[in-house]
Every structure is written in C-alpha cells, then in structure tokens.
C-alpha cells in the first residue's frame, strides 16, 4: 500500500438534538424544560486511506457520510476517536493543514456571489498564498479541463447550477490541495455534465496524485471514480473494500440471463431440482432472468447448457443499486 494520508481510529460522533412535538403548548413547555435526545451519527469508524486513492463514501440518507466528511476536513469535532489527515489533527484547523485540503459541500459556496468568477478566483488564490505564476498555470489547466472560459467574466449569481459547480471545483483546486473532499459533487447536474465532471475528476486524480474522498447517491459516480468504497449505515462501517467486491460481499447471489432456442423451451424447466435455490425474476417468451445463489452458479449453468439448446447465456452481478437498496431497507448484511 502507498503512504497513508488519512488514518481514522475509533471515530464516533454523537449529536444532541432538541426534541419537541409540534404545537404551541409543547413549544412553550420546551422553553422551560427542553428535552434532548442523543443521536449517534457515527460510531466507531476505523479505516486508512493512501495517497492518491479515490474512495467513495456511500450509504443511505442520514447514514453519517457527511458527518464523517466534516470530521475528516475539520469542520466538526468528534465525540471520541482519533483522526490524522496528512499528519494533522483536522479540527485544529491549522492554516498549513487547510492549505492542503479542499472541501466542496453540496450547496455551500466558496465563490463570492456578486462578483465575476475570475475576481473570486484571484481573491481565493491570494488567501491561499498561491504565487501569481502558479495561479495562472493552474487556472489555465482547470479552465481547459472544465471548458469554462466563458464563465470567468460573469457574476456567480448569474450562472447555472452546473456552471457554478465548475466554478466551485476550480475554486477548490486553485491551490492544488493534496486532498479533496467532495460531498455530492454531481447533485443536480444533467447527465452530460455528470459525465464530464467524472472524467475531469478521474483525469485530475491521475495527473496530480490527489487523494479524493467523495460521497454520492449516484452509484454511477462511485462506479466511474472509486475503485474502493466505504459503506456506512446507521453510522457504522459496513464494508470497506473494492467496489466490485461490494456486491459479492453483500449480495450472495448472481443473475443468470438465458435465451433459449424457441423449439426446446419446455425442457428448460427440467433442471429444477429440490435443492436448487433459484428465483425467476423475469420471463418473457424464451428469455429468462434468474437469481441464483452464488455457489450454485457453476453447477446450475452446466446443467442448463446440457439440457437445453441455449442461444445466449450470461452471468452477472446484480446491479449495484439493487444491492444497495437491499442494504438500505434492511434486507441483506
């Protein structure tokens, strides 16, 4: 493994949330006797991330992804546990540390709203002490990569969401941070913008060995960008490893798609023996999609091929969204 840049040990965060039921009476009551409940947003997280890795932080709404991201970047103090990022304790927020990292939070802007983007970039570059020459070079690179030359002279408030995200990314990369935290970077972008953004992030990561951690609800983002994922659910780490291992780890079945020669369609059913755990998910004329337990796949496939005249057969992992949905709704794991 490459050099470690993020080390997280036994990280937990509890929030104290004021609770009260609706209505005027209860609001008066809570004025004198406020009641709180403890919410465990993150519980005992442990992981390490190496330099240059691209890691997807995934999980359902309220899983604790953003809380984790905020603790890693230094916005939040943890309740217990230790974090080292690039050798620093994030929440001490030392200027040297803050110049090394960048965080893009969904709808929060680094840009100054009322002035042209270029002015914002210049101001930011000075805040981050970027020398003029380097600023020009980095900016030119980013403008090329993101194709945003036309945006520079417009006030940020007049830009579209996608255009603003481009500016946001440029702003966050101007000082060439070693670490990039992205919270839902493609939220609200159209398909082609999403594609472009992914290409850009991939390219940027490859060229600059930047470590990227991103949260996203679009599995397409994660699939395109992150060889490794960390799955958090109810604040706990459920899976940490390769994305293609996620399905295997969490969903113990595969999909067999088979197309039969029309004439021999009937013999197909003969394979069904008592200990087979097969569920036919779709059936349309001579095409079948079956869910089969992982360990049964080899024997079942060979039997299928022996007893049928098959024109097409494929074995696939279930779509990642389906696996995720099962976990999120409490099915698997």
């Amino acid at each position: 493994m490459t050099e470690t840049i993020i080390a997280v040990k036994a990280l937990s965060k509890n929030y104290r949330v004021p609770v009260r039921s609706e209505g005027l009476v209860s609001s008066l009551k809570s004025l004198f006797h406020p009641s709180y409940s403890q919410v465990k947003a993150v519980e005992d997280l442990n992981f390490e991330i190496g330099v240059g890795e691209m890691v997807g932080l995934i999980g359902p709404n309220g899983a604790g992804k953003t809380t984790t991201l905020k603790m890693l970047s230094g916005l939040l103090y943890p309740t217990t546990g230790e974090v080292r990022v690039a050798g620093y304790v994030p929440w001490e927020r030392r200027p040297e540390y803050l110049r090394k990292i960048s965080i893009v939070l969904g709808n929060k802007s680094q840009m100054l709203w009322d002035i042209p983007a270029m002015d914002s970039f210049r101001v930011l570059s000075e805040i981050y002490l970027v020398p003029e020459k380097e600023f020009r070079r980095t900016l030119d690179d980013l403008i090329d990569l993101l194709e945003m030359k036309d945006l520079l002279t417009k006030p940020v408030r007049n830009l579209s969401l996608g255009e603003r995200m481009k500016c946001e990314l440029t702003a966050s990369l101007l000082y060439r941070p070693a670490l990039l935290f992205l919270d839902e970077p493609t939220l609200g972008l159209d398909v082609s913008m999403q594609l472009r953004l992914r290409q850009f992030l991939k390219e940027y990561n490859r060229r600059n060995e930047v470590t990227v951690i991103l949260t996203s609800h679009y599995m397409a983002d994660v699939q395109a960008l992150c060889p490794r994922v960390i799955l958090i659910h109810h604040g706990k780490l459920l899976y940490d490893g390769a994305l293609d291992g996620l399905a295997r780890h969490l969903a113990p079945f595969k999909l067999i798609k088979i197309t039969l020669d029309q004439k021999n369609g009937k013999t197909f059913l003969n394979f069904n023996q008592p200990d087979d755990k097969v569920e036919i998910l779709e059936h349309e004329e001579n095409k079948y999609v079956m869910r089969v337990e992982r360990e049964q796949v080899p024997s079942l496939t060979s039997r299928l091929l022996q007893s049928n005249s098959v024109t097409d057969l494929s074995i696939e992992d279930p779509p990642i969204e389906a696996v995720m949905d099962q976990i999120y709704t409490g099915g698997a794991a």
Partner: protein
Amino acid sequence: MKHPGWALMRGFWLSWLQYRSFLFILAFGWMIPPLIYMLVWMMVAGSQGIAGFSQGEFAAYYLVLILVNQITYAQTNWTVGDMIRVGEMNRILMRPIAPVYDPLASEIACKIIYLFFDVPLVIVLALILKPEFHIGFTEAALFIPALLAAWALRFLWGYWLALLAFWATKADALLVLQDTLVFLLGGQVAPIMLLPDWMRGLAEMLPFRYMVAFPVEILTGQISGTAILNGFLMQAGWLTLAYILTMVLWKNGVRRYGAVGG
C-alpha cells in the same frame, strides 16, 4: 508576501460595490437620528447657548458624531448569527486564515464605501451650519487612537453578543439592545455632559460611551487632561473584556457548532 486579509478585503470591496446604492441608503438612514438631534439641540441652544454649548458647538459635535457613528458601527455583527444558523460558517472555518478576518475585512471594505457618501455630505452640512471647533494639535492626534479603539470596542462587543448564536438561535435581539444603549448612553440623544447626573455616571461606567461619544468629545474639545486619560483607560478595559469574551465564546462555540447543512 501580502497578508491574505487584504485579498479578503478586496473581495468584499468588490462585492459591496455591487450594493453601493443599498449602502448609501443605509448610510443615509444612520445619519438621520443624529441630524434630528443636532437640529433640536441647535434650536434649544438658540443664540445664548445652553449648558455651555453654543449652536455652533452642537453642530460641530453632531457632525463629528455622524462620521464617528458611521465608522464605528459594526454592521457585520448582524450577519454572524445567520451564518452560524444556516451553516455559512463552514466556508470561513475552512479558510487558511483566522476566521475573524472575514468580518474585519467586510467592515473595512464597506466603511470605505460609506465614507464616499458621508464625507461630502458632512462637508456640505458644515458649510451651511458653521460648526465651531476649538481644537489643538494634541486633540486631533488623540482623536485617531480613540476612534480606532471605539471601533474595535463596538465591533468586538457586538461580535461576542452575536456569537451567542452558537447557543441560542436568535441572539440578534441583544444587538438591538446594544444599539439602543449606544443611542441613549453613547452620546447620540445628547452629549454625555448634558445628561442628568445619574445617567451621566452610568454612561461613564458602561462601555457604550467609549464606542461613539468619547472620540467625539476629544475632537470637539469637551474633555481634556485626566478626563481623556480616564477615557482611554476605560476604553482599554472594556476592550480587553470584549476580547476575552469573544475568544472564550468563539472557542467553545465552534466546538459546539453543528456545521449545519450540506
């Protein structure tokens, strides 16, 4: 290398310039109460004067006060609470520069714009109202540090009040109270000298006089010698307290800060 605070200030300056007409209207609004009190006192003073103040001296007092009030008014304190509540603080916390530079840079940037509006207006008023100044070099020289300390005090005092938003959702009400007290005890409704004894005693004890009236009194020659020295000591004392409170509240508040929102 230049301090990054300058860059922040330029950013704010550019942003505020987009709002200059809004700022001019605000500046005009802040000018009105002192103008009214000036006219009232000038009328009361008539040609004989009152309590040792002539008409021209009232004019001088209030014209200086308009400028001092504008320079020391800490407008950014009003946005601190909102920034905490809606999570705007995130952006500021993530910058590699002490967070207090953000309101400071904003303050200085908008002040420059206000003064473009205020100074010409005050000069025109001065030509009409013929204020009487009797100042020497010492008063003029002492006015500057008194003014800067007044601004720092008014800013920090409002800032620690605003930081209470870390604990209570609407801390702005305390800023309204501060404005009211500055109005009553900071030399706006009347010069401190003209207040009833008990009120005057209170004004001299509390911080509000040192946010506005004190530098004005120096420049208009109302106080001298030990009175000036005492004023500076009071200013320094309150400033130290405001600074300590700000630091303590900030440190604890940020720990508590939920880093709200996306």
